[in-house]
């Protein structure tokens, strides 16, 4: 075992002083064994973590359930109120939007019709 360790230590070279120092360090580190309360302490930590995880799991479940209920209620509300049917047809609405100003801008008066446009043209020619 020790021979294998020495082999491994020498695997990539390195200074002999440092290698000796690592060996001394290994010997200088005390082999401590656990106190009698090591196992009870460990089980206490395991239980604490278990409780914490259970608490998180419960909260995650509650959150997921609430989110599902909210989604269902919003969906139900959305589908129970159908969108209002437009009162007027699309063409009617378009016609209304093309108002008198548009015709005036192009030299055509909706009020007087084509006649006003022609009269204006004649006056221009007489001048």
């Amino acid at each position, binding site marked *: 075992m020790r021979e294998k360790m020495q082999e491994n230590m020498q*695997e*990539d070279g390195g200074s002999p002083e440092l290698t000796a*120092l690592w060996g001394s360090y290994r010997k200088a580190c005390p*082999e401590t064994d656990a106190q009698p309360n090591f196992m009870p302490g460990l089980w206490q930590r395991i239980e604490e*973590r278990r409780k914490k995880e259970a608490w998180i799991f419960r909260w995650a479940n509650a959150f997921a359930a609430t989110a599902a209920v909210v989604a269902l209620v919003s969906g139900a509300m959305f589908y129970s109120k159908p969108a209002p049917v437009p009162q007027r047809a699309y063409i009617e609405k378009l016609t209304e939007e093309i108002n008198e100003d548009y015709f005036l801008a192009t030299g055509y008066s909706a009020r007087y019709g084509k006649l006003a446009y022609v009269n204006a043209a004649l006056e221009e020619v007489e001048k």
Partner: protein
Amino acid sequence: MNVDPQLVERAQSGDDAAFNELVQACRKRVMGIVGRLIGRPEDVEDVAQDVFLRLYYSLGQLSSPEMFDRWLYRLTVNAAYDYMRKSKRRKESRMADLSEAQVVMADASAGERAGKTEEARATIRDFVHWLLSGVSEDDRILLLLKEVEGLSIKELEEIYGANESALKVRLFRARQRVMKAFEKSQRNRDI
């Protein structure tokens, strides 16, 4: 560690008594490694408990009981990393100047001559910790696993999941840094 694979399987299946046995079987070894990695005897038990806590919650992920040793090594290394990240000790030790190291080294050699007393051991530990304060936590642990624990590159590859050349490069750089600090301390000692 040579743990019985059947014991590992029983612990994996949720047998608490088997887990207790498993901890008893590996405890001393784990505490030894942790002690050498973190260098603070007073915190060894706490970090070792953390290792076994991680083991308890990750045993289910272990694909084969034969891999248990490597698995436990990895958990030990991770727990040591986490401890060292939290610890401010390294920051303090970085502040230590070279003259202190020189004194420590002189004390260490004097202590060794006196017959390897506990005081000499403590000074060797302090000196090695000081040398290692110049490298990152990751490299420190890698270096200790290689040089002090005596793991081979192949074993380190399994623990770290890294390839041989990457590990060798990291080891080489870490060694160079430590070597520089070591030589500097030797020079100052000789002055």
